[in-house]
């Protein structure tokens, strides 16, 4: 594509062409720049709209939206602490379940799987990302929740005696923080595994060969030569999955039980910010109610921003440590 000065001197027609493509470049640059700027502008516009709509609630209720846990529309109390708690806990549970699974899938596919198996498994895992969330929700109601209630929850609570800890105590209704975490884990899994797989595949062959040549077993080679090389990319994938989990609305709403209470037990029902907004927005009657819901949206926006910033920082610091 780049033309050398020699060509330019040699041929007038070529010179013309260089000029023409230089105009093309300018137009192209301007148009792509417009595209690139349109997206941040959109983000800013959304943020401004949310914060403007949330302002009346913040002005009237202050930080009680974040710190109190009484959500009573009729009395005009809007404390979203249980929803904030639920969003963070369900996403954490999701990551705890999804990360080892997803990285396991990625390592198997990039290091062990024969070629004929690699394609179909990779395809099926990626397909998880294409399933609409309402379908996950219905599957959650009709398959996952009965399974959790009849088998998994009694097993965790009674057979493993985890019921003695506050985290698995209380009655097992089915709809619960645990159900939400499991659904979110399945939804976040393809993002993490897909990114991790690509990153692992991109590790240079020489890296592996060097480790093997030093007498490393396959496991040692993966642990010491491949994963450290791919670490920042894998963390990026995990953060992408976390972003998915934080914002997911429909599937979570259908399985979490929608109970605005803070409970240590994962067997108890909970609530998330996204569910709260989705549940109440269309039938919000008073202006303050609407504004309070927007305020919850603003808090979710800020939490997502923080998560993204932390992810950037993690990726950056891991990358720096490696090069040092």
């Amino acid at each position, binding site marked *: 594509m780049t033309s050398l000065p020699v060509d330019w001197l040699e041929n007038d027609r070529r010179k013309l*062409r260089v000029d*023409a*493509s230089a105009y*093309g470049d300018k*137009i*192209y640059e301007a*148009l*792509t720049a*417009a*595209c690139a700027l*349109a*997206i941040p502008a*959109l983000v800013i*516009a*959304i943020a401004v709209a949310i914060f403007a709509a949330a302002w009346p609630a913040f002005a009237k209720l202050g930080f009680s939206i974040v710190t109190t846990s*009484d*959500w*009573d*529309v*009729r*009395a005009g109390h809007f404390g979203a602490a249980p929803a904030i708690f639920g969003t963070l806990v369900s996403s954490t549970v999701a990551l705890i379940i999804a990360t080892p699974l997803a990285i396991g899938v990625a390592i198997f596919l990039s290091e062990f799987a024969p070629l004929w198996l690699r394609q179909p498994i990779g395809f099926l895992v990626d397909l998880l990302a294409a399933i609409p969330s309402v379908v996950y*929700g*219905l599957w959650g*109601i*009709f398959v996952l*929740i*009965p399974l959790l*209630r009849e088998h998994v929850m009694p097993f965790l609570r009674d057979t493993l005696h985890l019921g003695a800890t506050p985290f698995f105590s209380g*009655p097992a*209704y*089915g*709809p619960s923080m645990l159900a939400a975490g499991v659904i979110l884990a399945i939804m976040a899994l393809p993002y993490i595994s897909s990114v991790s797989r690509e990153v692992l595949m991109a590790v240079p062959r020489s890296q592996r060969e060097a480790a093997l040549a030093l007498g490393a077993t396959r496991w040692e080679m993966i642990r010491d030569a491949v994963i450290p090389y791919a670490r920042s990319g894998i963390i990026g994938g995990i953060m992408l999955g976390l972003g998915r989990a934080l914002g997911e609305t429909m599937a979570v*709403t*259908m399985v979490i*039980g*929608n*109970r605005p209470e803070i409970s240590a037990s994962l067997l108890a*029902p909970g609530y998330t910010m996204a*569910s709260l907004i*989705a*549940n*109440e*927005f*269309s*039938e*919000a*009657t008073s202006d303050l109610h609407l504004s309070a819901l927007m305020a919850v949206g603003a808090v979710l926006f800020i939490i997502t921003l923080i998560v993204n910033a932390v992810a950037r920082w993690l990726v950056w610091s891991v990358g720096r440590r490696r090069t040092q």
Partner: protein
Amino acid sequence: MKVLKLVVPVLLAVACAKEGANSSATASSTAASSGGSVDLTGAGSSFAYPIYSKWAALYAAKTGVKVNYQSIGSSGGIRQLSDEIVDFGASDGPMTDQQLAQAKGGPILHIPTVLGGVSVTYNLPTVQQPLKITGDVLAQLYMGKITKWNDSRIASLNPGVTLPSLDVIVVHRSDGSGTTYIFSDYLATVSRAWASAVGRGQSLNWPVGLGGKGSEGVAGQVKQTPGAVGYVELSYAKQNNLPSALIRNAAGAWVAPTLESVTAAAAGVVPTLPANTDYRISIVNGPGKGTYPISSFTWILVYQHQKEPVKGKKLVDFLNWALTDGEAEAAPLDYAPLPASMATTVKAKLAMIDLTGAK
């Protein structure tokens, strides 16, 4: 080649710009209707959406007048009518005095169109005959004061029935809903404790229970959980063959939710109405032996003073048709039609709509 080099980036850029425009368009409100050929726009109750869209289709086929109805929820319908975005609103609960005062286009008329009932459904695998329940016991269940199905307060209503010692698992709607409004309106009417502790509304601060999103969420949870009790629209319970409890009405009779018993609730109340009623009335726990007590009107909301006479005329014609021929479409869709006598008086009310265009 030369042409291609120029065209590709331009195409790319155009595609890019379009995407940006699209996403900003979806980000902004989608309230406005798209087609230029739409004559009347309405928005509101999702409960009434099936019948209103059926009416719109039939009316367009008959007269050519197109009605675009968007099911965005009752509160959304009230808000859009107040802001004069749509020609009519639709709501499952009457507007409050404050909401009426805030409407930008002046006085609003409530036009009852059809009726809906709320079924109380449950999951008690060993119980064969329909469960009998009173409003007071229902309120105690939903306040967490009765926690076992074999509690004497339930058993005494169901002589001869062996009730299991299952825990009661209360299921309610998590999303704001007209169904919740009707249900809580009934409980607040029959139980003083409920009225003071919880009250009536589209979204409530529930003392106990699990929240399911939409009727399908409530029904799904009740179906899956032995010992669960929930409430759904009569039409939903009917179409999905959910068991419905018999409720004791104000006359002391045990009544199952059916289209007839819901229509009877309106028929029982109508004679008691003053001639100048604005139809902002609750008919829960209404009089009459055959009355199902958890029933309600659903309303179409219109401005009394129509600013555009031509459009106003179209609106009045549509409502007239709906209350005449449209009522026959209600039962097949599992809505209870208005009592015949009432449809006539409501139609007479349409004459109050001022089509002169004067302020």
